[in-house]
């Protein structure tokens, strides 16, 4: 086959495959994997006063190790916040050292492939590089994958959503066995705070739709389609104002904290408290609780508190 034929056939085939996959719900039924939330000793682990990677080592041990979530031969997708073209000190993106350590844990547990991506706000190549996440994740052997091309996104139905009934989701979220969500805790001009649930805006294609159609409800609606298997909230350096992008280093305070939970609502509630805001005052956390996605009342949870 000549190269030219190959390309033309490729285009035709691509259109055919694309139109098949663009039938709503096709991809989610055929390929997407269900989330499988694991039983752990604690509902939530909170840890402070250590370096990000050291805190993760200790905290994940309390949940039974990453092996509880990642089995031999499985594929893992890690979703950090890599939204902005800024350096790690500005704390607009997840700590790169934490990402590296999580990747290492996954491979130690026998993961076949570990993917890292985000649908960034600034130019993705610059975000991947300035955040240093690309470098650290690759060092640990992960595949760093682009997230800013529509062809990677597949249409799915979100039947339990109130405002968000369907969306286009990155194919790696749909095809990977394990989904680990690694947000960074930040102030946020529209969502008030960005933590675990808000971080999932970086795995869908059309953020504008969420913004137009009741943002706080859409953020809560999405996890009814797919909850991450594990949420690791990076609260080492925290942007207290001018989030999510930040203006200067003056916006950042050092909190040296981390929260890990399989319960996305609980993780966000605990992180909100850490930030100094009542979880119920963050509309999307309250909305998610009302959808039955997790527990907003931390007093009802079995929490392990650690200090390094």
């Amino acid at each position, binding site marked *: 086959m000549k190269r030219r034929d190959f390309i033309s056939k490729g285009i035709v085939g691509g259109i055919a495959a694309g139109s098949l996959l*663009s*039938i709503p719900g096709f991809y989610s039924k055929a390929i997407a994997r269900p989330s499988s939330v694991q039983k752990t000793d604690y509902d939530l682990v909170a840890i402070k006063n250590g370096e990000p990677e050291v805190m993760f080592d200790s905290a994940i041990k309390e949940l039974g190790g990453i092996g509880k979530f990642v089995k031999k031969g499985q594929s893992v997708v890690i979703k950090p916040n890599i939204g902005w073209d800024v350096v790690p000190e500005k704390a607009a993106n997840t700590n790169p050292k934490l990402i590296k350590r999580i990747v290492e844990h996954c491979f130690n547990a026998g993961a076949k492939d570990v993917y890292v991506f985000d649908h960034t706000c600034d130019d993705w190549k610059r975000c991947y590089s300035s955040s240093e996440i690309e470098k650290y994740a690759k060092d640990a052997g992960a595949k760093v*994958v682009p997230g800013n091309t529509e062809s990677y996104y597949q249409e799915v139905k979100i039947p339990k959503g109130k405002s968000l009934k369907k969306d286009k989701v990155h194919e790696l979220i749909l095809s990977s066995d394990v989904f680990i969500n690694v947000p960074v805790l930040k102030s946020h001009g529209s969502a008030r705070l960005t933590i675990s649930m808000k971080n999932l805006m970086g795995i869908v294609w059309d*953020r*504008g739709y969420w913004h*137009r*159609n009741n943002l706080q409800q859409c953020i809560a609606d999405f996890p009814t389609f797919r909850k991450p298997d594990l949420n690791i909230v990076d609260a080492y350096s925290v942007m207290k104002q001018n989030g999510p992008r930040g203006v200067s280093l003056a916006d950042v*305070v050092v*909190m040296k904290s981390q929260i890990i939970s399989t319960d996305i609502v609980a993780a966000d509630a605990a992180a909100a*408290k850490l930030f100094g805001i009542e979880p119920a005052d963050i509309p999307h956390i309250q909305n998610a609780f009302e959808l039955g996605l997790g527990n907003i009342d931390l007093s009802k949870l079995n929490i392990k508190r650690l200090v390094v």
Partner: protein
Amino acid sequence: MSVVFFVPILIVFLDLADLVPHDMKLVFTNIQFIPAFLNFVQNPLVDFAIFFLLILITLIFGRIYCSSICPLGVLQDIVYYFVLKINKRKRFLYEDPKNIFRYSLLIISVVVFVAGNILLFNLLDPYSLFGKMSANLLRPVAMIINNGAASVLTSFDIYMLYPVDIFFHLPVFLFSLAMLVFIVWLVTKKGRLYCNMICPVGTFLGLISRYSIFKIRIVEDDCTSCKVCEKKCRAMCIDSNRQVIDYSRCVDCFDCISACSSKAIIFTAKNPLEKNAPIKTESVHIKLDMSRDNSSIKKLNNKKLENPKESSTIDNSKRDFVKTVIASFTLPSLILRATETPKVYKNSTIAEDKNYLVTPPGAGSIEHFNDYCTACNLCVTACPTKVLQPTFIEYGIFNLFQPKMDYHKGFCNFECKICSDICPTDAIRKINSLDEKKLVQIGKAHFIRENCVVITQGTDCGACNEHCPTKAVKMIPEDKLLVPKVEEDLCIGCGACEHACPTKPYKAIYVDGNPIHLTAKKPIVEKQKVIDTTEDFPF
């Protein structure tokens, strides 16, 4: 030698992954004649070296610029190579120069430029024309190939290549295509006639090359007037019967030297009639060098043949474009059909009131930008966020194709000033530091409250504030919601707010250009209190 100049400039325009350092790109674009001339005009005391060097080279060796440095010249030679492949007996014959036409075109170009309009350089300058062709014809082809390869690799779980967004700008695409077709046709019929009739650079350098020291000269005693050289001459400037060469049109291709069987054409500083033996031997050396140079051109052409990516640009571009057009019409319609949803959102009602286009930081003012931009499209290809897009007649019919900041395509990356680093004509002047760029106010954001989601829907949005790098867009509490408010002093006009604003069909926040760029106030810095991390968890 052509390879040395042509291949890099091709790479500069086709560098999809932005791998080549910008300083290196500049080396190859700044030596182009019109960019060098425009740099000289703007800053005669600093940027004179390249301009005078180009003139000096012409004064010594003739139109080397046209044979080797000019990318459009080399492109024509590549086309000519294929013409010869197809029609082995392709011959030219001497024609009289089109003096009235070419000199009036040159004079008009210069007069119009002096009068403050760059249109004719924009349309006729060979470098800018080649830039338009590369950016709008070659680059999309390269992108399609890249995207095809990327999707194939991705299906094998290899993410080495990544897909790129292809933007298709019809007017400049059609112009580039028309010019390419026109030039290919000219080459087929009349060789390098573009360079000798239309190109203002060629005509100007022709005025100098009449008096150049080294020239191709016919040794009258050895010449049999066999017309071989005349038929070979792609500039159609050798009159074999009269044994005369029109030096204003010779583009230094040296085909005649290798074609002449009686070795009656030599490249030398002195008139051979004076019969000076030492000079003649010297000229033989040069002759050998030149024939080697000639073979290197052939090698280049062969290389082009072997390399499918480049050869396809000649053969397949049209075909691939038809495919792109079809694909670009089919895919969106499929996507559109797939995303139809029950309408919750209320459409925005008030149109944006934009008075001025936004020019890139470094342009200084719309006027300066309009005066010096030749629309080579280099910044358009280099811009990482694709916010720089070619226009058609938005700047006026005398400022065709000059780029603008298009906030529907992207927004100006806060940490980037590539366009100002890379512009070869200094239409976008170099900004020394990123800190300086971050205060250049190219426009100001305006908020239309009545269009805003927070007002029309009564739900949170704040996409504008989220993206704003200086926090010129603040969120002000109103009831339980937060409503945007613009502080113009802090705004730099980057367009992040406008790009992110989700309202349809009109945006609730938009940037109106500053006709003259201003300096924004520094963002307000409020230091956060240090937190005592030894306290207990608050839960």
